[in-house]
């Protein structure tokens, strides 16, 4: 009887509304809000008006979200004012703001390549972009022909891009395991769809989407089971709470908690499953199998975006997990990450040597780079965090730029990605070949490019953090990797062009801007990196 009255009384009390810090959440809210508006555009605007409206909306949203990130950083949210927002679900601190800024800028540059419509010849008098006229139409079928003739374009890619960016902004900021999981899915699901939407070579594109989806869902199931086990161990999903239980400094031990914390199997298995889920997104060996196929099959603008931004977001989440949740387990995760880093560097560099397709080559190079970045993660020092932040910023712009160049080299079948077709490109189009050479040199880590500064910072941090052997492996892998980057440069400049080889399309200012920004960032971060290194080292403190 008494319990019933109590329940009735409680029901009459007002529910306290949670405090939401809209200011600190502004970057995420702007991007997700614009994505929702983009969907409304799809529903209500006539087809002809959608392209202009969607590109303007997406560009404005990304730019204003970046302005919001800068505003938060200037207001001290990266240092003195750093804290937890949205009832502790998100942490707004230095690493969060730095990575959100990088993700937003890279997405803005990718948006330019998404919006490019001058590369393909006109279809029925209309400009077309890299995306299928109608994603649902069977390739080569009647409905596809009708859609092309009617001039349909898949403008849904812009809201999908914004949703993916929204998830990526939350991912490195997530401060509990539930937010981590939801953010992971919010950015993965749009990417699966984007992969399936290529205009040319649609069977390849759909196959890439299928592989990415099945393996991605498989890995997120592992991540979720890891979350369940960690929750079982600690009785909470909040990062700080788990860290306290792991370090044994928590207050208020209940009987159930005493039983589960005694069981290290829950902690170790849960942590390992969680790491497996994140390493999949990063594309580190042995969870790299999807990378070459998906990079090759996806539309090239999507590949560039995914290769750059996903890596930034996933490494952000990985850093926070290892440095905030599991610092008490450093001695357990370090050997495992050593193995993963060495395997990634070695396998990525060695297998890339045998590749004959530019996109697959860049995919294996991204696996090797995941290994280099992991070397900085393993350092487990503040210098390790800031070197990883800097490397991610440098690497993402090189990647987007390189894939933007790949979209330019075309023959009758669309993009000519086979390396043999790139022979002699430097004689026919010296500028494009020179720009691509700059990106390749940056990937290889040659001085005066951002790749060198990034690698130097990461290896220095790793050596000081007691991972000297890893640095040796890293340098050897870099040397192997340099071989195949230089080989492509030699192929472009010192072999004779083939008759009937590809031509270089003249892009609109959109792609030109994207490539120019890529080159500019690569050279500035290589020649005068000090300001950005300082920025990264100031940003390298996690709030708890």
């Amino acid at each position, binding site marked *: 009887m008494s319990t019933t009255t109590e329940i009735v009384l409680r029901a009459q009390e007002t529910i306290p509304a949670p405090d939401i810090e809209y200011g600190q959440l502004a970057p995420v809210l702007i991007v997700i809000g614009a994505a929702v508006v983009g969907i409304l555009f799809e529903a209500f605007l006539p087809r002809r008006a959608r392209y202009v409206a969607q590109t303007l909306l997406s560009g404005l949203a990304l730019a204003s979200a970046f302005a919001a990130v800068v505003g938060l950083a200037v207001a001290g949210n990266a240092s003195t004012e750093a804290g937890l927002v949205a009832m502790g679900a998100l942490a707004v601190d230095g690493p969060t703001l730095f990575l959100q800024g990088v993700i937003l800028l890279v997405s803005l540059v990718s948006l330019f390549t998404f919006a490019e419509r001058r590369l393909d010849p006109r279809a029925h008098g209309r400009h077309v972009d890299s995306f299928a006229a109608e*994603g*649902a139409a*069977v*390739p080569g079928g009647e409905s596809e022909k009708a859609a092309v003739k009617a001039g349909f374009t898949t403008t849904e890619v812009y809201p999908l891009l914004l949703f993916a960016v929204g998830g990526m902004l939350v991912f490195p900021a997530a401060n509990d*395991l*539930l937010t981590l*999981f*939801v953010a992971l*899915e919010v950015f993965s*699901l749009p990417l*699966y*769809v984007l992969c*399936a939407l290529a205009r040319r070579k*649609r*069977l*390849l594109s*759909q*196959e*890439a*989407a*299928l*592989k990415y*989806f*099945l393996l991605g*869902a*498989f890995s997120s*199931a*592992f991540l*979720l*089971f890891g*979350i*369940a*086990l960690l*929750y*079982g161990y600690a*009785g*909470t*999903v909040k990062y700080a709470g788990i860290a306290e239980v792991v370090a044994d400094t928590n207050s208020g031990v*209940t009987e*159930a*908690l005493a*039983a*589960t914390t005694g069981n290290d199997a829950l902690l170790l298995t849960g942590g390992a499953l969680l790491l497996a889920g994140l390493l999949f997104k990063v594309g580190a060996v042995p969870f790299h199998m999807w990378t*070459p*196929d998906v990079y*090759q*099959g996806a539309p090239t603008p999507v590949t560039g975006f995914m290769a750059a931004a996903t890596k930034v977001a996933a490494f952000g989440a990985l850093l926070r997990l290892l440095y905030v949740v599991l610092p008490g387990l450093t001695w357990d995760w370090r050997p495992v990450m050593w193995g993963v880093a060495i395997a990634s560097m070695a396998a990525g560099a060695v297998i890339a040597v*045998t590749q004959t397709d530019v996109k697959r080559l860049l995919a294996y190079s991204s696996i090797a780079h995941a290994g280099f970045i992991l070397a900085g993660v393993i350092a487990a020092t503040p210098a390790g965090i800031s070197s990883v932040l800097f490397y991610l910023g440098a690497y993402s712009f090189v990647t987007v730029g390189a894939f933007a160049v790949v979209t330019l080299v075309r023959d009758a079948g669309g993009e000519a990605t086979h390396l043999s077709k790139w022979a002699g490109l430097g004689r026919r189009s010296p500028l494009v070949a020179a720009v691509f050479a700059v990106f390749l040199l940056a990937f290889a880590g040659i001085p005066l490019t951002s790749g060198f500064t990034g690698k130097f910072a990461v290896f220095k941090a790793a050596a000081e953090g007691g991972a000297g052997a890893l640095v040796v492996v890293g340098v050897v892998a870099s040397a192997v990797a340099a071989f195949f980057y230089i080989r492509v440069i030699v192929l472009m400049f010192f072999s004779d062009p083939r008759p009937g080889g590809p031509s270089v399309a003249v892009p609109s200012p959109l792609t030109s801007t994207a490539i120019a920004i890529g080159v500019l960032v690569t050279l500035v971060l290589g020649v005068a990196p000090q300001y950005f290194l300082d920025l990264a080292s100031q940003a390298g403190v996690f709030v708890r």
Partner: protein
Amino acid sequence: MNPVNYLFLAALLFTIGASGVLLRRNAIVVFMSIELMLNAANLALVTFSRMHGNLDGQIIAFFTMVVAAAEVVVGLAIIVTIFRSRHSASVDDAGLMKL
């Protein structure tokens, strides 16, 4: 009944799902196996929630269901497009990009 038994059941279901993903050929069945893994995680979450006496695990289970539903939407769309263009949903047939 000791709640730990439900954890063993969850682990068993998860393993069955994982082996299904690795062994089955049909993309739809692979996808169903993934859903089984998600549901195994849900069972573990709810059991832990009961053991610890707080509601976090049950709330996560609800979120997982929503996420799984969203995954079905995207996944079935991709599998159906593949089936329509190739008249096969076998993951072994999707081999255009081998090295």
